[in-house]
């Protein structure tokens, strides 16, 4: 198990070191904006804020409300493409 964890850590490290993580993050962000995910979620935020009251909104509140919804709202195409890229990276750098 710890091998697993170790391996994961190593992979993550590699991801970061090679700048691939940044690239993936940017790619994801761009795709989400393009497909309207961000606007959808923002509208949801508005509801939450109106509900909770403008003055008393905290980050935790928002995170708790938004994250599950956000995860669910990601379109399939975006998910697939991202997974593909990750797998490609893993395949490429399976051995150190």
């Amino acid at each position, binding site marked *: 198990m710890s091998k697993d964890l170790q391996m994961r850590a190593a992979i993550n490290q590699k991801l970061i070191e090679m700048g691939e993580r940044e690239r993936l993050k940017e790619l994801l*962000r761009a795709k*989400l904006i393009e497909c309207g995910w961000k606007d959808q979620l923002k509208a949801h935020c508005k509801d939450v804020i109106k509900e909770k009251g403008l003055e008393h909104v905290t*980050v935790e509140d928002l995170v708790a409300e938004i994250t599950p919804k*956000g995860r669910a709202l990601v379109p399939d195409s975006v998910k697939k493409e991202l997974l593909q890229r990750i797998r490609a990276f893993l395949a490429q750098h399976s051995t150190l």
Partner: protein
Amino acid sequence: MKMEAMSLSGLDNTKLEALAHDIYSDLVEDACLGLCFEVHRAVKQGYFFLDETDQDSMKDFEIVDQPGVDIFGQVYNQWKNKECVCPNCSRSIAASRFAPHLEKCLGMGRNSSRIANRRIASSNNMSKSESDQEDNDDINDNDWSYGSEKKGEDNQTCPNPNSPRRSKSLKHKNGELNFCRLAYNYNSGISYETLGPEELRSLLTTQCGVISEHTKKMCTRSLRCPQHTDEQRRTVRVFLPGPSASTLPDVDAVVESDGYDVSDGQALMNRLQWDGSSDISPSDSASSKASTNNSDSKKPKKKKKPSLGLSSSGTGGTGGGTGGGPGTAGSGSSSQGVLSLPSRKKKPKLPAPPTPSIYDDMN
């Protein structure tokens, strides 16, 4: 050992997949967090709800999605069916055709003058014979005679009596009074008979003023209008009563041109004919030579008292002689003109004097 630990090849696919999904989830969560922070900051800074106004305004500016209107709710070809009444011809014209119609109707567009001139050209060519043209040229050569010797021109009805062809060919002729071709007007001249002396004077200081043979109208182009020579302008200013009009400040003398004989002027002008040395050289040397030559010959012929202190030699090369001088205006100015004319007119004979120098007086 480390190598082994790191190697993924030992992993089976499910684990790889799980790994990939984990990485993906992390990325998505990052994105969500980013959004939350952004929104939270906007809320706390107070600009989160800025793009929303009250409900009523929102309703007003909603996107319209009906057939026949654009998204603002405006009808597209609303003005196509409307009709306007033309103020000129009092016809009812479709709105989209109104502007071009006005152009033609008022005769002020680019095309309308072309069409009109072409029309006149064709009608002129049909009504006039070739010999007519020749005769006109001969008679008018270097002379301007108002109406007396010319055959009656019955072109009063035509707005532009001179066809474009005529005016073009005769552009550079001496003494020919051509109707100035104004690009944009039908009736493009002024009848001098209707003008009072003051108007006449002011007109002649600013405009060409050469009287067309055909319409008896004065050219309203600028003083340097290329259709007429300075000599023509001079003769006009000599002929028409009263004008001491010159633009230059040297004018003192009172002009009387009543007793001036046209033929006399012609004789004078003929005497002024230069043979070869008529090449216009704006240089002073040429001018002084010219002036002395002519002034001597002019003396006996002078009719009017030269009250102007302006002498042709004195003015030298400047275009300056303006004379208010009448009678000898022809001679004097032509001499002056030779001197100072920087014009590019290609006349073999007398070089035309610059327009302001029409009245210079000779001592």
